[in-house]
């Protein structure tokens, strides 16, 4: 597997979690989610490809979306976590923490055995 493929898989694996985390404190519209992700991560490469992920997460019932008129010159589509989304986010956070912890332990073990 090339480095690019591996990085792309990591990015894709992390993106769902990052999006759910971004909307967990409260509803956000698409551009606001992208700006938040760009402020904290390098996960957004092409802004337009975030919208299909939001559509999928909505289709899977993890997010719900509704259009809001009047607060900007153009209507904004807001996303919020559903109950099912909150549950999934909780599980994903736990799994992510465990995963990172195990890899970190593995890396420390490798470093120890080489020294």
């Amino acid at each position: 597997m090339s480095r690019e493929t591996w990085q792309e898989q990591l990015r894709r694996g992390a993106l769902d979690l990052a999006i759910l985390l971004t909307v967990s404190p409260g509803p956000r519209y698409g551009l606001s989610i992208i700006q938040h992700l760009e402020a904290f991560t390098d996960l957004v490469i092409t802004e337009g490809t975030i919208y299909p992920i939001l559509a999928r997460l909505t289709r899977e019932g993890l997010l719900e979306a509704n259009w809001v008129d009047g607060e900007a010159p153009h209507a904004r589509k807001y996303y919020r976590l559903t109950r099912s989304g909150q549950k999934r986010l909780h599980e994903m956070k736990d799994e992510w923490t465990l995963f990172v912890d195990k890899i970190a332990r593995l890396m420390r073990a490798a470093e120890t055995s080489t020294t």
Partner: protein
Amino acid sequence: MNLSSTGDSRVNGYLFVLERSLKSFLPGELVRDAVREIESHVRERVAAHDGAPNEREALEKILKELGPPLRVAQAYSAERIIDEAVATGRVVAMVRALWHLAVTTIGGFLVGLALLTGYFVGLGFLMVAAIKPLFPQNAGIITKNGWPVGFGAQFPAPAEPVAGGYWIIPISLILGFAALVLTHRAARAFLSRRQEKPDLPALR
């Protein structure tokens, strides 16, 4: 920044291409919703570009960051069609995903063609097995001057009698099912690979 009529035309052109691309695989209502959301994104970005010295440059930068309309449409298709096919493994979903890749990418076309051939070969063997008991003179190993030149069924019956007795039925069934199963597995593996590595650029 307020767009001039030229800038508006550029945005509308982008949205037109996106809409046309999305229409090939998404229901109309979802297409309208997706285009509306992308338009909202562009208008919002444009509005935030107050004081930009050059409208054309600012707009091109916004559209570049958004990504070409075909890539955005491909990302929608990748999220929707391929996910469904890989998750369910259903034949209809797989065929739809393969068809979409075949008509949107060159690699997808070549792989789709190979997989389609595999499915047809499998179905062909099964059809020979089904036809043989009904038309024993028409189905089997087709020969010419005593040499086998093909395998299948021919209507009307070939001038030279077909070779192969009823034993070709179990052989055809085995080969047919084997071809279908192997092709289906290959199709699913291909779609999984596409799902893992869609048309998105690599991490910076």
